[in-house]
């Protein structure tokens, strides 16, 4: 009998934990540098018990949602403009490509100077980190629309405004959703990165606290939480949307 996918996964992660525990038991490194899985779980349990973990998660996710929402709205508008107006593409389009090559963390100094150590500063970093991925994917999506869709819609009386909402966005949606997915990935990195440097609540802040207290198990615990949220959003939220879109648009 072939082992199921779930069984394989469980086996794999169980193995990692066993090896980890084995390395810890071998006492090669001191405990304060290389904690055991139990230490990390204990640390997570502390975080749950005093709710500081939930507070951290909630703060980070709130910043992510606000930033990503702004980035998605802005990226959609910018991407559609670039795809429909050649001059906008030739001018702003080249700038967008350039800006996208700047890692979002590189915006942090500017954000601190402009906004101080505030929520707004962190959200600024998230928006800047995510907006260009949404823009570029939206642009590509709109450029790749089957021209017959647009012609059929115009033929049936659609004006440019109606065209955007009723044809351009839905027709480009398979691309736009990859833009959202990339945007979310950049945004999540941006949130954590910015929080580390801003040191102003959130999961990134908890990471920094762990470092300042020399608490390696807290650092690892928070990293696991960050990864867990990433897996959840990618593997559950986006996978569901993507599956539906791919099927309905006839892409598989």
């Amino acid at each position: 009998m072939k082992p199921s996918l779930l069984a394989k996964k469980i086996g794999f992660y169980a193995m990692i934990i066993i090896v980890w525990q084995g390395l810890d038991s071998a006492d090669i490194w001191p405990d304060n540098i290389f904690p055991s899985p139990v230490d990390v779980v204990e640390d997570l349990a502390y975080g749950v018990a005093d709710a500081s973990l939930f507070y951290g998660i909630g703060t980070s996710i709130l910043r992510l949602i606000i930033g990503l929402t702004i980035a998605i709205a802005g990226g959609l508008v910018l991407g559609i403009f670039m795809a429909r107006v050649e001059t906008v593409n030739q001018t702003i389009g080249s700038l967008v490509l350039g800006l996208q090559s700047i890692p979002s963390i590189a915006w942090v100094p500017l954000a601190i100077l402009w906004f101080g150590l505030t929520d707004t500063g962190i959200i600024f970093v998230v928006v800047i980190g995510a907006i260009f991925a949404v823009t570029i994917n939206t642009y590509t999506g709109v450029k790749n629309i089957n021209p017959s869709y647009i012609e059929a819609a115009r033929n049936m009386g659609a004006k440019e405004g109606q065209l955007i909402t009723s044809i351009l966005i839905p027709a480009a949606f398979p691309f736009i959703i990859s833009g959202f997915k990339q945007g979310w990935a950049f945004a999540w990195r941006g949130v954590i990165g910015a929080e580390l440097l801003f040191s102003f609540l959130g999961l990134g802040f908890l990471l920094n606290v762990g470092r300042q207290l020399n608490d390696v198990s807290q650092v690892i615990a928070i990293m696991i939480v960050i990864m867990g949220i990433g897996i959840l959003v990618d593997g559950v939220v986006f996978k569901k949307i993507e599956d539906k879109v791919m099927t309905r648009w006839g892409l598989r």
Partner: protein
Amino acid sequence: MGKLESRNIEKYFIHDGKPLKTLDGIDLNVEDGEFVCIVGPSGCGKTTFLRIAAGLEKPDEGQILLDNQPLNNTGPDRIMVFQEGALFPWLNVQDNVEYGLKIAGIPKEKRNQISHRYLDMMQLTQFATSYTYQLSTGMKQRVAIARALVMEPDVLLMDEPFAALDAQTRDLLLVEMQLIWQKTKKTIVFVTHNVAEAVMLGTRVLVFTHRPGRIKKEFKIDYKRPRISEDENLLPYQQKILAELRPEVKK
């Protein structure tokens, strides 16, 4: 009404940096309620002519008139049925069919009422909530035709709508198309490269020349309806048209 006139339509395309004449003075009167088929070799500009009539492309010379009014834009008075249907995959069958009505701001109840009538006519009622990926090619073309009919256009412009269908489905749709035409009394301009199809459908068949496209000859098909593909009496028409068409295809 739906009297479509084409006056001296000329069209050039740029090919390798040089203008290439595609349409060379198309003069044509399509009377209200006529079913005109255009056949021609591929690249003769028959689709381009249809697109110009639909207002999706501008002619370099000449004019299209609908009921004596010159036209210079696309609009729901002349609805085009595309070769591959151009159905919207993100909408289900009913929403596809209602698209043009929704754009025009017609309230939901009224939309449903109209779309049900045409879904019923095209035998699509049980597929109303299906998405296009769940439909066969023949079904998709039915939806495309229903979507065009709900607009109640003066003129229906059809660009090889049955080209991708298997023979059985095509025969079926060719008969249905005649019934729909008889029922709705629409003016139809139908482009195809299939002579048998043109003879079955058309009250008149126009043969286009090889590029640059001109009307080479026209044939009146006075024969009872609905015509079926096995009917041998249609063969002489086909042969006459083929005799005109063959030299053009070989050019």
